[in-house]
Structures are given as C-alpha cells and as structure tokens.
C-alpha cells in the first residue's frame, strides 16, 4: 500500500492558509504570513506553507518537508489547547 494516488487523507489536506481563522482566534493576529521553523528538520517557511489537517478532532499543522507535527490546536469546550513543540518558533506580528 505504498501508493500515494488515492490517498484521501492527503486529498483532505489543505495548506496553512486554511487554518488562518483558527490561528487568528488564538493569536489575535494574521498568522498565515508568520515565519516559523520545523523543530524536526529545520525547514523555514511561513505558516501558510505548512500542511493543514482540519478534518480531525483538532487542527494539525505539519512540515511540508518532513511531515512532522509542528502545531496542534484543540478547542475543548470553552478553553483552547495549543501545542507548538514541533516549531522552533512562531514569529507573531504586533
């Protein structure tokens, strides 16, 4: 099953711009142009260039080079959880 064709999970994948609304809610800033770096492989790029998985119990942003998880966000009732261990940094514009 090493075919990539017909990978519905990949077909559901969007780019990081699709996560702009959720990210705005968390950071109160437009994050799609924000620079970031993958803690796993060191790739640098804008948040909008990450792989976004939104059809899940939460939002998952992955590195397009190594597919490691960089950022996860869960809105759990009236609180929000953020895990950005997979990103060296996220540069947030003021």
């Amino acid at each position, binding site marked *: 099953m090493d075919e990539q064709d017909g990978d519905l*999970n990949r077909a*559901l*994948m969007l780019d990081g711009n699709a996560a702009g609304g959720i990210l705005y809610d968390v950071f109160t800033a437009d994050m799609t142009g924000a620079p970031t770096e993958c803690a796993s492989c060191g790739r640098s790029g804008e948040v909008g260039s990450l792989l976004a998985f939104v059809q*899940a119990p*939460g939002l998952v942003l992955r590195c397009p080079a190594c597919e490691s*998880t960089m950022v996860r966000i869960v809105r*759990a009732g009236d609180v929000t959880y953020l895990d950005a261990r997979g990103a060296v940094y996220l540069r947030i514009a003021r």
Partner: protein
Amino acid sequence: MGERFVSRGFFGRRRQPEQAGRIPPGQYLVDDWPVLSAGPTPRIRLDQWRFTIEGLVRQPVSWSWDEFLKLPSKTYLVDISCVTKWTKLDMKWQGVSVDTLFQAVSLDPRAAFVTAYSYGDYTTNLPIPDLLNDQAFIAYQQDEKPLTPEHGGPARLVVPHLYFWKSAKWIQGFRLEERERLGFWENLGYHRRGDPWKEERYSGD
C-alpha cells in the same frame, strides 16, 4: 439495506431497528463513513508490516502480516461514535480479538494501561480492562473488503464502546505501561477515556 423501505403492507409494519437507544447523547446518525485525519496516510508495505506487544510483558511478541492473518479472527457487528458527533450503526468488521493477542504474552502484574501506537506519530491511551472480554479487536476487513488506507488499513484498532479516536488507524503495536501516558489527542484536552454514553469528550467532562 433496501428492505428497510419496502416492507409495508403484506408483512405489516416492519419495526425500525431500535435506533434511538443506540445513539449516544449529542450524536447524529450518518450512513456514509467520514474520513478524519491528523496526517498523511503512512505508507506501509505488507512485507514490512508488524504488530508488536511490548513494554511490561515478560517477553515482547511481534507478528508479521502473514502470521497475523493466521490468527483466529471473528466477525464483529458494532456501532461506532466519533467525538465529532457522528454515529454509524452496524459496521461489520473482521479482525483479531485483543484477548487472542494477549494470550500470546505474559503480562507483568504492574501493567495497567496500554499505549496503542501507529505507523506515523499517532498514539492513544487505554486502560487494559477496556481492551478485554472481546471489547476490542484489530480489524483488517470492513464490509468484507480489505480495510482501505484512508480508514486505517492495512489494520486498525477498533474499540467500539469508546469514541473513535481511540480506535487507532495504522496500528503498529501496544506498549504495556504501569502509568497512563496520554496520547495524541488526550494530551491536548481530550478525555482520557472517552465514553460516548457519558459524553466524555474533553478533559474534565
């Protein structure tokens, strides 16, 4: 499933399946099978696939794909509820009971929890009692066809009595633990157990 709609008259009113009592609170019924994913489908060659039980066991055990298919399997007809609020009734699976797998290992008496880990980076945590007495199985067929990759094939864990995020796709193994180590969603606010009948969606529910 057509007979559900054609049984008026001659046979009298056919009873609808007892659906109301089978849909947990806050859930709605679906006929399709939504795909949810937190990452790309891992690419696993069947000749390299293994399922392993390790951690607090006297001796780890590991099965190849061919060995796994030779284990006694069963047909399961179960209802599935996802924390994103859909419920699908009467899903038919073929797979190996976790009871059968545990018979092959000798558990350390300290073992109380399982970390189910997948190809890719997914994990989920389960108390051992939730996996026993035929409550959980490793499925490799759904509706008599091989489980498709987007739904977790070649094989996934299925734990029908808990929210479906516990039913880890692309299952690779069980690690037996003394303490509960929260999994991919559980460590980010989701409930540690996830009973749909108690609406255990988030930590603190």
